[in-house]
Every structure is written in C-alpha cells, then in structure tokens.
C-alpha cells in the first residue's frame, strides 16, 4: 500500500515539475505585463515539434536541442512583444487577451499546416530505476530534473541579473521604474521573450514524455491558468508551488476518483480559490 502511494506521489511530483515549468513563463508575463498570453500552449507545442523534427530529421539529441529551441522561442517572443503586443499593452484585458488569441490562431493554424496534427514524440528509452515496487522511468526523471533546473535558472535570472532586477522593478511599479531610467517597452519585450523561452524549454522536455500534437495546446494553457491561480502571479516560487500542488492533486485525484476526474479537480480547485483567495495560496497583495 505504501509503495502504491509512493508511486502516486512520485508521478505527481514528476507531473508537477512539468506543470511548474509550463506555468512559470506564463505567470511571469501575466504578473509583469498584465497580459494573459493565450499563445503559451502553442509555444510549448511549437518547441515540441521543433525538438521532434530535430530528432527525427537530423538525429539531434533532445537535450542538445533544448537550448537552441528555447533561444528560438525567446527571439520569437521578444519580437512579437516589441512589434505588436507593446502597442496595446496598457489597454483593458479584453483587448490584450483577444489580440494574443488572434495571434495564437495564426500560430496554431501554421503549425497544423507545417507539422500536421498527428501526435509524435521522441522515444529515448533510457531505462528505469526501481526502488522495491516504485518505478522511476529515467526519461521522465530527466525531464523532471531539467524542468526544475530551467525553473531554477529563471529564478536566478530574475534575482541575479541586471535584466532580472529591471523586470522585478517594472513589476513592482512601472512608473517609478521608468523614472529610474529603465526602458519599460524593452523590459516588456524581454519578459515576454523569457516567458516564451520557458515554454520552449518545456516543450522540448514534453516531447520526451508525452505525444506532441496541436490538440493539447488548450489543455496546456488551462494548466498554466490553474497553476497561476493556485500559486499567485509573477513569482517563480509561486509557480513552482502551484505546479507541484496541481501535479499532486491530479495524481492523487486520479488515483482515488479515476483518471477522467483528474482534470476536473484542477478546475474545481481553481474556481474555489478564485472565489476565496484570488491572490493565490502564496500570493501577495498589492501586485495586481
């Protein structure tokens, strides 16, 4: 019995690490720019497709593809924000959300034309570790560790680098940051780029673990929503905690109530939290 629960716990943690990695970029963009990026799920899948294409086409190992793919997404995000989204960034929610939805439709359509919607994945088969009855497939474990590492990297960037401090400053008070000589539009573009980069890294990892198809872009976006609401906006620890909570809730919920119910639990948890504590379990007031 305890081995079974240990397995469920382990699965939940692995899932949670991926969710955290998906959500942390989304949460950063939402928290700093006050923009809900409806493109986030498609960014993840785009990176997944690129990783698969690099693997099947040129035999590039996914771990090696991770960095260039993430950098490519960084550039895409940076220029999208600089060229388009910055123009309406201070307008009401409906405008920015509709704009990113329109951009997402374009990206989604292009992906379907370029890559076709057939699910694909990278199968590495690295073997597995077994502790008694608890099984840890190594490809999943590697994806989890790298997802946590990427999340940690973003934390280091935000805490340690000049750009990171500028992003945090803009998030706290945009006008004051502008007065201190921070070029806010550039910081916005860099933030959106970093968000896309995290989605890119995550997509490369996701290709190892799950089939990549455009059908799941909406689901991924939904997970990012839920994690943000659980963990609060714009902080790396919040997204990490939210991701792990969601992973565990889905894993244990699936175990107890059946796998179909698992996705519903996340949404139910989110609605309850929205009603009771919209700043998230770990969120701080005053940042909205």
């Amino acid at each position: 019995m305890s081995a079974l629960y240990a397995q469920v716990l382990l699965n939940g943690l692995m899932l949670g690490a991926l969710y955290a990695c998906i959500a942390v970029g989304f949460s950063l963009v939402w928290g700093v720019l006050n923009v809900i990026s409806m493109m986030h799920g498609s960014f993840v899948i785009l990176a997944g497709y690129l990783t698969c294409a690099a693997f099947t086409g040129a035999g590039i190992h996914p771990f090696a593809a991770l960095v260039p793919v993430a950098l490519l997404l960084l550039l895409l995000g940076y220029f999208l924000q600089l060229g388009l989204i910055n123009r309406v960034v201070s307008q009401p929610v409906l405008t920015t959300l509709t704009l990113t939805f329109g951009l997402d439709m374009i990206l989604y359509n292009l992906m379907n034309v370029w890559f076709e919607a057939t699910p694909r994945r990278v199968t590495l088969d690295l073997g597995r570790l077994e502790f008694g009855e608890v099984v840890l497939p190594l490809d999943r474990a590697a994806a989890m560790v790298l997802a946590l590492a990427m999340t940690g990297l973003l934390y280091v960037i935000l805490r340690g680098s000049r750009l990171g401090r500028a992003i945090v400053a803009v998030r706290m008070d945009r006008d004051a940051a502008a007065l201190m000589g921070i070029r806010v539009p550039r910081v916005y573009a860099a933030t959106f780029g970093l968000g896309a980069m995290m989605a890119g890294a995550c997509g490369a990892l996701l290709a190892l673990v799950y089939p990549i198809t455009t059908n799941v872009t909406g689901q991924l976006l939904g997970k990012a929503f839920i994690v943000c609401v659980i963990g609060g906006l714009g902080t790396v620890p919040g997204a990490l905690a939210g991701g792990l909570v969601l992973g565990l809730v889905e894993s244990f919920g699936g175990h107890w109530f059946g796998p179909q119910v698992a996705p519903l639990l996340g949404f139910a948890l989110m609605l309850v939290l929205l009603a009771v504590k919209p700043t998230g379990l770990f969120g701080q007031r005053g940042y909205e």
Partner: protein
Amino acid sequence: MIGAAVSRTLGSRGLPWVAGLWLVVLALSPLYGDNYIVKIATFVALYGVLALSWNFIGGYAGYPSFATGAFVGLGAYAGAICQNAGVPMIVAWLLAAIIVAGVAAAMGPVILRLRGHYFAIGSISLVEIGSVLASNWSGLTGGGEGLNVRFLPGGPDFIARFFLYAMLVILVAALATTIAVDRGRLGFGLRCIAQNEDAAEMVGVPSTRYKIAAFVLSGVFCGAAGAAYASWVGYIAPADAFSILLTVKVPVMVLLGGAGSVLGPLIGSAALVLLEETVWARFLDYHQAILGAIIVALIFFLPGGLLGLRLRWRS
C-alpha cells in the same frame, strides 16, 4: 462606449428601422436564395443571438466574459437530453434556456466577484469544466461519442426554413430585451459599472444585483440558441458544444461591431459570419489563420468597432 454614443445619436427613430430592416432581409432569404443562403442566414441569426447576449455582460457592464461557450454547450446538452427524454422540441428549448439561466444565476455570485483577468479566467474555466463534464458523465451525455438528436420530420426545405425562423424568433427576443435594457435603468446602471464600479456602487447602483442580471441575460438566450442548434444539426459532441473558439469569437464579433450598443453586435456578427463564409470557402487550410489575422487587424485598426468608424468619419 463609442458604439453606445452612436446608437444614441442615431436616435430612437433610426435604430428600430435599421434592426427591423435587417431582420426582414434575413427572414426573406428563402425567397431570394437557395438552402445554402438560408443556412447562412440561420447562422447569422444564431451568432446575432450570441453576440447580443454577450453584449449584456461584456458590452454594457464591461466584464470580459468568456462564458458564451459554456452557455451554448450547456443549452445544447440540456435541450438534446430533454428532447431524447421525450419532451417536445420547443418545450425542450425553453427548458434549456431556463436551466442555463439557473446555472448562470448560481455561478454569477461566485465569479462576478472577480475583476479583470481573474474574471476572464473564471469564465473561460466554465467552458472547460462543461467540456470535461460532458466527456466524462457518459451515462447522461453519451461521453466523447456525443449525443444524437432526432431529426425533425419534413423535407430539407422545410427544415431549413423552420430553423431559420426559430433562430429569428430567438433573435427578436434577444433584440427586444437589449433595447429594453439599453433604454432602462438596468442599462444605465451597467454602463456606470463599466465606467467605474466603485463609484457606481457609491452613488447607489446595486452593482452585484445588476451584474448578476446581466450575466443571466447573457446566458438565457445562448441556452435557447444552443438547444435549437442541437436540434438543427442533430448531433453534439463535447468539444463542439463547449467550444473555446466560439467563446472568443463572439466577443470578437461584438468588438468588431461596437460594444455596448444595440446595433453593434448585429453588425459585427453579420460581418464576421459573411467574412468567414467567403474566406472558409476559398482557403480551407488557412481559415483559422485568416480569422486570427482579422482579429489582430481589428485590435490595431478598429478599436471602436465598425460603428466607431462611422463616428470617426463624422467628427
């Protein structure tokens, strides 16, 4: 807001004429077109209903609601389930409208406490929850296989006309309600809420009650239209009924026409349906990208909608 201003300058005299003329054009479509044209007219009426519905909460009250897909899906399933249980078709539609209104009234107090992004997300999640419920509650909804609804007896001509006039009746009801709200206390209160909710509360607008009223109004006609749609196409599945695409497309229609006015939603829905129908036919592989490009262009070049354009020319 600009749309509302135009509606008011166009005046009480001009407005019913334009809307009435448009209804006549749709209603006479069997006379000048084949069944394909009648189908398009039916879609225009359907989306007109959805756009007018969204306008209550999104246009007048200024709350970025993405619950349209949830209302339509719930209405479609409620209507289909009632009909399969032996309830006469039109009674099933009415029941669906009542059920959706009830759910909106129950959910309203929870999610209308949220503002901005949080409200947007709360309302989008209603669509997701509906879709997950419909896929998994297979005893009631048929699960992922979907649900068949008995076709109406009669030839294709009769069916096409029947559903055109059914949609038009719902459209007239939604339009009449919109005009009543637009000129009444509720519309005034909702506009106050859209401009500054705290200030509105301060001067005595019962904001919570008004918002819930707007949310219920934005659900009830969607429920009827969803149920009628299910009877029309004869088959519904979770992903089509609870559609994220629909839930964003309808606000886009209203933005295209001009939010917070009577005519805006009618103009926007007609424009987008006709545009889509012409684009769809020619670029099958790229229709979604083109719709996306239209949305992007709309945000940048037509922030006040088509009605706003008129105003800009005037001034």
